[in-house]
């Protein structure tokens, strides 16, 4: 029985749909069930490596229903199989349970998703900005933030030659 079928059997209602494109198999789940699905995949089905944790902002996407999507990419090191678990989030409740207890590699990946998109992870040991400076207030990778920023990059004092 394939992995997707096993998941359907185990979780039934939590799985919204499954997709497959090129060689990526995607399983779309509800935000509440994410942690159980990933735990089941890790412990019972052998997907022991978290390859990818990222988010997408679907604000300007054609036919988008929800605003944010969070994607978890898992790999089964023994069989080489990959599976992608995806969940959708909408404002105002942009929180998900953290998977740091399952994989410690998720610590920094979740911090980066928080820094870039503003999605918080409940239970994360140390959720703060990782790539932008601490004082930064916006979430850069959201679609409503312009490419060139809001003038933060030039907001520093100038040192002329005579002063230095």
């Amino acid at each position, binding site marked *: 029985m394939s992995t997707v079928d096993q998941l359907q059997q185990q979780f039934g209602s939590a799985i919204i749909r499954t997709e497959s494109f090129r060689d990526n198999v995607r399983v779309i789940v509800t935000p509440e069930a994410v942690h159980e699905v990933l735990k089941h995949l890790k412990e019972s089905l052998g997907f022991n490596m978290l390859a990818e944790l990222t988010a997408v902002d679907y604000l300007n996407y054609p036919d988008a229903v929800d605003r944010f999507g969070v994607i978890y990419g898992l790999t089964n090191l023994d069989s080489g199989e990959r599976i992608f678990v995806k969940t959708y989030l909408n404002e105002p409740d942009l929180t998900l349970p953290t998977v740091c207890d399952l994989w410690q590699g998720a610590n920094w990946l979740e911090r980066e998703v928080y820094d870039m998109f503003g999605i918080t992870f409940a239970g994360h040991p140390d959720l703060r900005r990782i790539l*932008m*400076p601490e*004082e*930064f*207030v*916006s979430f*850069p990778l959201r679609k409503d*933030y*312009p*490419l*060139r*920023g*809001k*003038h*933060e*990059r*030039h*907001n*520093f*004092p*100038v*040192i*002329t*030659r*005579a002063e*230095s």
Partner: protein
Amino acid sequence: MAMTADFFISKLDYVANFIRANSLWPMPFATACCGIELMATASSRYDLARFGSEVMRFSPRQCDLMIVAGRVVMKMVPVMQRIWLQMPEPKWCISMGACASSGGVFDTYAVVQGIDRFIPVDVYVPGCPPRPEQLIAAILDLQDKIRKTGTLFGKEFQERTTFDGPAPLHLELNQAEIVTAPGSYESSTRLQ
């Protein structure tokens, strides 16, 4: 009786410039890809030590040339300013690469569009990354500049009191949209 040269008469400025130009010790402020070309320039094929840059000291207190190689991000600007202020006089700055000179390919929210907006720069080296020969040409240009305009007590530095960097970007936002986020080098580089 043979002609012997016992006295050497010259201007003090000339002697000082000669010494300073021919022993520029760089401090590589290597941030990104240009840093690798800087290391390649210091390696055996294009040897930078031939031109006096014998050692690359990483301590700012012991160098007189800061080579900013690579893109400078807004989080890094306070660090760069602090290091520039730690260097003792006389000091010069080379901005190496397109990203340090003007932001390069990265016209984004995080990259400073030219370090000359915050640091006084003496020589710019274009290229992405500049070939080692271009960097050597820049060092030779700087040596020329020192020989021609240097003084013993560094008076030419005190005359540069105004900001001689680029004009603000013409795509400026109006005041209401500006978000002030980062700080100055005094606050952003402390641990507490």
